[in-house]
């Protein structure tokens, strides 16, 4: 009943408006792509030094790490938690949220659409140049195709679900602003922990086993570690299928929790600034 009141068309219209807005930031995208490219190279060399100085075989091959690094750079906007939407923060902190509340929309869904479209438009501007250049690099550094077509398919599926999952996680950062009155603290906390547990600092297969167990119990790795390792061929199809179900489970849980928490925050909402 509650869903019928807010029609899907308004969310779609909002999605396209946001995409249109997001695609305006071309210069930022070019700068971002170049930064990611340099950052990617730096990581490649660091890991090369690591692999060359170690005689024992590592649980993941250098070529596979290279795949993960390039995909991370290309789809950065899909999974970094510090990629933030200042509109929502200012809305809460300056009281413009008043306008959002006097519209016939569900705030959670509306913000969800806003956040997902911002990440989509940002990634779509950045990923192509990075992927293209990375594909034409000389041998050990180049981006290859995944081992099979099936891997490719599961990569796309888990990548998309990973994006949805990340947005549900990031929603908690925005909701926390109702309580903390500052975006910096929770942003930092989420970003540091989230990125570590997503395997963005050390790839998950290179972590000690006990740490891997913790990582597997948290939602963060399901945003980017899973799809990229499927692409690199490090995760097989059976595990990919299991991961999809875990992704769906996390999404469901976090959406329900997020909606409840937002509902609660709105009851005590203070509209700042008169």
């Amino acid at each position, binding site marked *: 009943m*509650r869903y019928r*009141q*807010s*029609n899907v*068309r*308004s969310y*779609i*219209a*909002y999605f396209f*408006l946001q995409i*249109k*807005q997001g695609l*305006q930031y071309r210069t930022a995208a070019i700068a971002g792509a170049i930064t990611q490219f340099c950052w990617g190279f730096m990581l490649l060399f660091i890991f090369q030094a690591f692999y060359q100085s170690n005689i024992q075989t590592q649980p993941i091959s250098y070529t596979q790490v290279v795949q993960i690094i390039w995909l991370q750079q290309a789809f950065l906007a899909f999974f970094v938690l510090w990629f933030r939407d200042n509109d929502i923060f200012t809305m809460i902190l*300056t*009281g*413009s949220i*008043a*306008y959002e*509340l*006097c*519209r*016939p*929309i*569900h705030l959670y869904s509306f913000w969800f659409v806003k956040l997902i479209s911002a990440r989509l438009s940002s990634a779509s501007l950045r990923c192509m140049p990075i992927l293209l250049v990375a594909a034409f690099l000389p041998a050990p550094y180049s981006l290859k195709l995944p081992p099979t077509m099936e891997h490719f398919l599961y990569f796309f599926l888990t990548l998309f679900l990973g994006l949805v999952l990340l947005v549900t996680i990031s929603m908690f950062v925005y909701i926390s602003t109702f309580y903390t009155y500052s975006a910096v603290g929770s942003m930092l906390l989420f970003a540091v922990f989230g990125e570590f547990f997503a395997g963005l600092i050390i790839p998950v297969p290179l972590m000690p086993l006990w740490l891997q167990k913790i990582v597997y119990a948290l939602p963060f790795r399901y945003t980017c570690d899973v799809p990229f390792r499927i692409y690199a061929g490090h995760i097989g199809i059976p595990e990919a299928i299991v991961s999809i179900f875990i992704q769906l489970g996390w999404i469901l849980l976090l959406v329900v929790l997020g909606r409840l928490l937002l509902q609660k925050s709105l*009851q005590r*909402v*203070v*509209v700042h*600034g*008169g």
Partner: protein
Amino acid sequence: MIEVLHLRKQFKVYERKESLRDSISSFFFPKWKWVHALEDVSFHINPGEIIGYIGPNGAGKSTTLKIMSGILLPTSGTCKVMGMIPWKNRIEYVRQIGVVFGQRSQLWWDVPVLDSFLLLKEIYRVEEGRYKKSLAMLVDILQLQDLLSKPVRQLSLGQRIKCEIAASLLHQPSILFLDEPTIGLDAVAKIAIRKFIQRINHENKVTVILTTHDMHDIEALTNRVILIGKGRTLFDGNVSLLKENYTTDQSIEEIIAQVYTEYEI
């Protein structure tokens, strides 16, 4: 149409101290106090009225408006608008009202005004035919022809407020809440807005509640004012009643200032 009874709203406000020692102690033992934005506000508004909701800064005008538009929950008291309680069934309720906060913007900053309008059309599920009619009417009266294709950030304040008001009326609400719609506007823009408010009240029978500090707004638009101060209703009635007790050569501005001092608000 609008029934407000013994409305009360209090906020928790944290106290911050200046010295380092105090700020450390307040980190562990935060001190706060209740601030009473509204103590006891009651009034009744009939369909088709224009109400001037006035009072000094901090009297609780915006808070009342936010409760009536379903944004804030009151601490106690009742408020019924068109038979509905605003903060319950918020979504169903806000479909039927229009709100303008003069100091904030509801339009999307980086895209042309028309894009914002189209999105609002989808949000409020306004049918194509009705939308075109209502847009044509608004464009005509508010003279928006040249503004529609401009991004909001390029508009002047007066132009933006016109677009804000148009945006809040696209779905043809029967009640319009205006929170300081003429703040910061020049004389021409003010007069245009006033004329517009009169016209939609007359022709479309829209009930209008506006807060303002500009007493010319009141003189031009309405006979009935509700005066609040320190969170209480102090006066509700005809402006001329307020004037009667004072010498006639005083401007309405001076009269209101005197009223404020007399009520010690």
